[in-house]
């Protein structure tokens, strides 16, 4: 059914087969969700459609054979980002029910129509153009880099190629991603209005949660933590990893905080600030150690490959979880007062 992994031959069968039917419906759903997220008349509706958009994108990643991306999209893109947006809008009175129409409505519509027509033409006519000699057929599209990477995976300390790439071959990129998260966090801190009035502070608590909500949160949170741990542990041999696990832990913190079962996450807490920095810091320490005493910047010693990767991932998971929790439900307070 599927060609063996690692080789991609030139397309000989028609691209328009029945297998495309669910994909076409998914694409249609995607366009509708994207449209709704931008141009729904009320902002609250637009945000809900944004979350639905995230779910559809996760399904599309699944159809494109990218399970790590599907996991990350379902956890972070659909879940946490949507909650974050809703929280941000909630802080601004009246934002939720404002009309959302902008001047680029017709431009976006025209673009969507033209893009769909172009894609449809590619789907239907490329074969006939190729057989008429007007379009060069794509032969042997196996990327050279992928062959090299696949060959090097067994020595990287983990078995899953995506984890090997993220945490060994391109560990520098992952380190920078952790730093980007830190920058996002400090950027968010700048946005808090200074001198929050006392009444704002008094009502910063969430509404009294229904008994059902607290009970449900008590059931969901351990499930989230266990699934997060499972994804982290499994990241070495199957799709999973630090970001997905961290976001599940953050989701547990969010739901516990919103139902009042967790005390407020204050930015002034030293423990929280330390754990936020810990992931990037440990990664930097490892990088510096390998640069000074080892073979080079972030070139792991072969004997400690797997151990290093697992430790980095574990600490990064904690960091990512706390960063995401602070981003979504950290107390909006000004540290200077």
């Amino acid at each position, binding site marked *: 059914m*599927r060609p063996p992994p690692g080789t991609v031959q030139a397309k000989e069968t028609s691209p328009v087969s*029945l*297998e495309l*039917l*669910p994909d076409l*419906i*998914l694409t*249609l*759903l995607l366009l*509708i969700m994207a449209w*709704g997220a931008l141009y729904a008349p009320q902002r*609250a*509706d637009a945000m*809900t*459609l944004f*979350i*639905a958009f995230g*779910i*559809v994108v*996760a*399904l599309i990643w*699944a*159809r494109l054979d990218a*399970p790590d991306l*599907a*996991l990350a999209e*379902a*956890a972070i893109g*659909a*879940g946490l980002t*949507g*909650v974050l947006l*809703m*929280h941000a809008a*909630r802080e601004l009175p009246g934002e*939720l029910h404002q009309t959302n129409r902008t001047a680029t409505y017709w431009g976006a519509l025209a673009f969507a129509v033209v893009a769909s027509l172009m894609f449809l033409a590619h789907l239907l006519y490329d074969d006939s153009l190729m057989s008429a000699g007007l379009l060069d057929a794509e032969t042997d599209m196996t990327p050279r880099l992928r062959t090299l990477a696949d060959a090097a995976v067994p020595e990287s300390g983990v078995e899953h190629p995506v984890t090997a790439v993220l945490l060994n071959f391109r560990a520098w990129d992952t380190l920078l991603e952790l730093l980007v998260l830190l920058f996002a966090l400090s950027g968010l801190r700048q946005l808090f209005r200074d001198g929050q009035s006392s009444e704002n502070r008094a*009502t910063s*608590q*969430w*509404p*009294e*949660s229904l008994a059902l*909500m607290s009970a*449900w*949160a008590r059931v*969901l949170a351990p*499930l*989230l933590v266990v*699934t997060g741990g499972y*994804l982290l542990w499994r990241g070495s041999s*199957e*799709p*999973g990893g630090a970001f*997905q696990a961290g976001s*599940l832990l953050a*989701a547990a913190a*969010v*739901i516990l905080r*919103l*139902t009042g079962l967790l005390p407020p996450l204050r930015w002034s807490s030293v423990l929280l600030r330390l754990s936020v920095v810990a992931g990037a810091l440990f990664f930097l320490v490892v990088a510096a150690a390998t640069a000074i005493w080892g073979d080079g910047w972030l070139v792991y010693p072969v004997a400690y490959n797997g151990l290093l990767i697992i430790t980095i991932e574990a600490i990064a998971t904690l960091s990512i979880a706390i960063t995401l929790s602070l981003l979504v439900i950290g107390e909006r307070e000004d540290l200077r007062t």
Partner: protein
Amino acid sequence: MIWLASIILLSALAGLWRMSHSPTIADRLLGLQMLSTTGIAFLLLLAHWQNNAVWRDVALVLALLAAVVTVALVQMLRRRT
């Protein structure tokens, strides 16, 4: 298998129409719930179709996150008491 996947996606599409033409915000959250259940069904079908167990894990994560998102959004949209 393909037909099943297409049918559930089409029913999600039909439900979405209703969801967008309704007055209250609770209807949108309802549409979210329906879309996530459909997505989970699609992923389970995909797991069997491609004989790959990882899609069941993605379905589990989607189920968990859909539950969290609904509770979080309800709590955020309620008026402060």
